[in-house]
């Protein structure tokens, strides 16, 4: 266990306070968690803001919303779930599942959109 109970690091480094050492020197402090949550909240507000754009096309909304969704997803996994700091094996296991899920989606999409009667007739 490397839990710190004092305001200074075991090696005497005054830069590392109690909260910096809660999970080791690389893990975020409480203050950093709050800052991350504020950023996530701000991105959510921007996402909701797109709902009020008049006559926005689906293409524009996808272009605006998907990057914001991806940023929120990656920030939560990296900092709140500690993937940025933890053993790389966890990252590989999780993202392998995620990639498989995307693959399933692409297969299902192609089954519905391309491998239907209309398209097969077109090919013939």
């Amino acid at each position, binding site marked *: *266990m490397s839990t710190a109970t004092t305001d200074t690091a075991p090696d005497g480094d005054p830069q590392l306070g109690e909260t910096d050492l809660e999970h*080791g020197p690389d893990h975020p*402090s409480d203050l950093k968690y709050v800052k991350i949550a504020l950023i996530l909240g701000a991105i959510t507000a921007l996402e*909701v803001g*797109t709902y009020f754009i008049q006559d926005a096309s689906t293409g524009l909304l996808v272009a605006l919303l998907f990057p914001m969704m991806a940023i929120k997803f990656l920030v*939560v996994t990296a900092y*709140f*779930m500690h993937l940025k700091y933890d*053993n790389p094996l966890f990252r590989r296991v999780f993202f392998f599942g995620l990639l498989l899920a995307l693959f*399933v989606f692409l297969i299902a999409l192609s089954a519905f959109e391309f491998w239907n009667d209309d398209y097969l007739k077109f090919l013939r």
Partner: protein
Amino acid sequence: MTDVVAPPTQVADPPGEIGHGHATATGISNTKLAMWVYLGSDCLLFGSLISTYLLLRHRSVEGPGPEDVFDIPFTSVSSFVLLMSSLTMALAVASIGRGDVPRNRAWLATTAMLGGVFIGGQVYEFTTFYREGLGYTTNIFGSAFYTLTGFHGLHVSVGIVMLMSLLVMSARGNLGPERAEAVEIVGLYWHFVDIVWIVIFTVVYLIP
């Protein structure tokens, strides 16, 4: 000839890992690895449900569609509540790592409460949709929507049960820094539920 089995060696906590002071062949916690494998497999479950929803939502012949029933401002508040519950969960994990049991208990209770608010919002939303004529079997959009969001709500409910169990353990004095990993693992599950909602909120509610 006899097989020689090396005795398990005590693996020191790697930098950045706490409360995992048991020996494993990989040097990482088996319980934590199991949770990550489960979360990876749960990606497939939600990936399939989201794919199904996207492919079916505009194929309804009759009945209300997404644009008729969705209340984006209301769902936005629910999304914000769930997002903030991830913050309180992260603070709960951090506080148990420091050995601060009272603060850990407070953050766990706050997270459970925020999860309860989210579930309450979902029950209200489902009830409203049903009154507006969208039942589970009304049309294909309703079936896909209720299945997807219902499964997510079930996951949140299971997370609340886990949090309440941790609170009971803590009240009995069984949740100290030596069991920080239990809190961390429940935290992983909770954050996963949050990231799934991040995707659902964008893909289901915000993109027409």
